[in-house]
Structures are given as structure tokens and as C-alpha cells.
């Protein structure tokens, strides 16, 4: 699943049977490289979801078990915009810039990040060292 393809897709809460918003951004962590949270755009009260709430990345909608009432399992702090890799420069561990992140390929079931697409190179997810406010840092030269 490419983020560019999933971006803007409807996010539907299964228990509410309602559109909660549309997918707007991902939060990515390393070791292993994975999507930890989603940011939504829309009119709903919640605009972030933890990855574990995702039921399925369907062709027409992302379905989530957000929980209507309690919402205790919603941890807003799991989405950090500084952990959003899109548009950030990719720096290798030996100080070379490989361009900026233009897309992220991830497994819609597990959330594993398979590939990071930079302007100059495609990078395997295993090479990810970290995503921060300034850059995406990757192993290898």
C-alpha cells in the first residue's frame, strides 16, 4: 500500500458506521519500521488513531474500531507530526542526503514500512533508523 494511494481515503468507524474523516498523514517509528498512528482530516471529534485500531485498509475505505463512547483506547499522543516522514530529507548514517521522502509503502495489515521512496532512491524499510522533526535517517551509504 502506497501512502499516496491511501491518502485522502475515507476512514470509517465500524461501531458508529460513520465516516470519521479522511486519511491525511502517517506517524512512523523505527526498529522495526512501522506505521504507529494515522492522522485524519475531517469534521469528526477525533483526528488521530493508533495503528492497532485499524481493522482493514480496504479499497474504498479504511475501517477502524475506534470505539464510539468510551474512546479510552484512543491515545492522541501516539500521532506525532514530527514522526511524519513525508517531505522530509533523507540523511544516510554517513551524512549524505538522498533527497526528500515522496512516498511510503507499508503493509496494510501489519503496518510494517516496506519501502521509503525518496527523490533520488528507494530505501528498504529495514534501513530506517529514525524519523524526526528534521529528517529521516537511514542506514548505509
Amino acid at each position, binding site marked *: 500500500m502506497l501512502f499516496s494511494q491511501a491518502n485522502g481515503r475515507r476512514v470509517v468507524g465500524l461501531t458508529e458506521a460513520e465516516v470519521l474523516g479522511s486519511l491525511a498523514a502517517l506517524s512512523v517509528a523505527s526498529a522495526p519500521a512501522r506505521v504507529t498512528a494515522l492522522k485524519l482530516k475531517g469534521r469528526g471529534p477525533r483526528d488521530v488513531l493508533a495503528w492497532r485500531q485499524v481493522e482493514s485498509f480496504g479499497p474504498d475505505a479504511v475501517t477502524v474500531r475506534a470505539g464510539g463512547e468510551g474512546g479510552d483506547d484512543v491515545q492522541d499522543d501516539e500521532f506525532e507530526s514530527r514522526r511524519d516522514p513525508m517531505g522530509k530529507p533523507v540523511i544516510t548514517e554517513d*551524512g549524505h542526503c538522498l533527497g526528500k521522502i515522496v512516498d511510503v509503502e507499508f503493509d496494510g495489515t501489519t503496518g510494517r514500512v516496506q519501502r521509503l521512496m525518496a527523490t533520488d532512491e528507494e530505501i528498504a524499510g529495514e534501513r530506517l*533508523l529514525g524519523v524526526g522533526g528534521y*529528517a529521516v*535517517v537511514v542506514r548505509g551509504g
Partner: protein
Amino acid sequence: MTRYVRASELVKKPVVTFDGEDVAQVKDILFEAADGSVRGFTLAGRGLFSGPLKQTLAAGRVHGLGPDAVVIRDGTALSGDDQPAVGVPGGGDVMGATALTVKGTELGKVVDVIIEGSRQPVVAGYEVESSGPPRRRVLLPVLRPVGVSGDMVVVPDAVVDFAAGDLAGFAEAARGLRHRLEEE
């Protein structure tokens, strides 16, 4: 991808952690007075209005270094205020020093230091501007200078045969010199 970078190009480059945060930027490069090796870096903050930092970065704590960034494992690589700084700028600063061969030929003025930085930064050579005319800049691979001071860098005679015009050619020149020295 070149492993070599000019010292002057490192100034203002971000110091980036594995976590992707730019914790500082390079303010100045510190050289060892005795042998001209890279000792570490003084740092400045990253903000538009942030000034110099008290923290420094020792060469041994650098994970990798290239034309776009200095990479460290995490913020603990920087020395705290309580630790001694890695040195004061200018100690082994060879900028403007005269490059002289052992046999006594003056090659010109040192205008930059070439650093090999895929891992811990080490000095790999010097950019020298000949007094001319015509003024000409060449990159000289110097694996180990014979002597270094603020006024003069004495280099082995063999480096003259391996002068390079740019950083791309420098890698080849350094290899050539290493090969020659191994043969001797």
C-alpha cells in the same frame, strides 16, 4: 558516493541524531595542534537567532559525516557543560599555512582541509593554492603530514605526484599515494 568533504563545507551543516532531530549545527572544526588531526567540532544552535552552544562534539563520538550532515547516535554524543570542551579553535588550524615538501619545495597556501568522513572524521589531505602566477588550486592527499604548525604543513615529497583537481579525483589520488607508500 564520495567519502571526502572539505572542512569549510561542514560549517553550518546540521548535526543529526539517529532519531532524525537536528540537535545542533557545526560552527567550527577543531584540529589537534600537535599533528593536525580532527579533534572535534564547536556547535551552534539551529534556530535563526540561536547563537553558539557551550556543548562540543568530539571526533570520536561522530557516527558518520558527509557533505549534507554530521550524524550522531543521540544527544549524549555532545559533551555537556560539565565536561571539558574538546579544545579551542585555532590550535592546529592550518588555514593559510604554507605547504612545504620535505625536500623544501613550497607548494602554496593551505586554503582548506579535506576530511574523510564516512565514519570517524580524519584528515585526508589539504587544498592548496599555489602562489602562481597562475594561481592554481590542487587537492593533495596527505596520509600523515611530517609536521604541522599554524604557519606550515610539511608533507612527504610523494604527495606532489598525486595532486587532484577535485574531490572526485581526490579519492583516486589518495588510493594511488597509499599504493605507492605500501610499495616503498
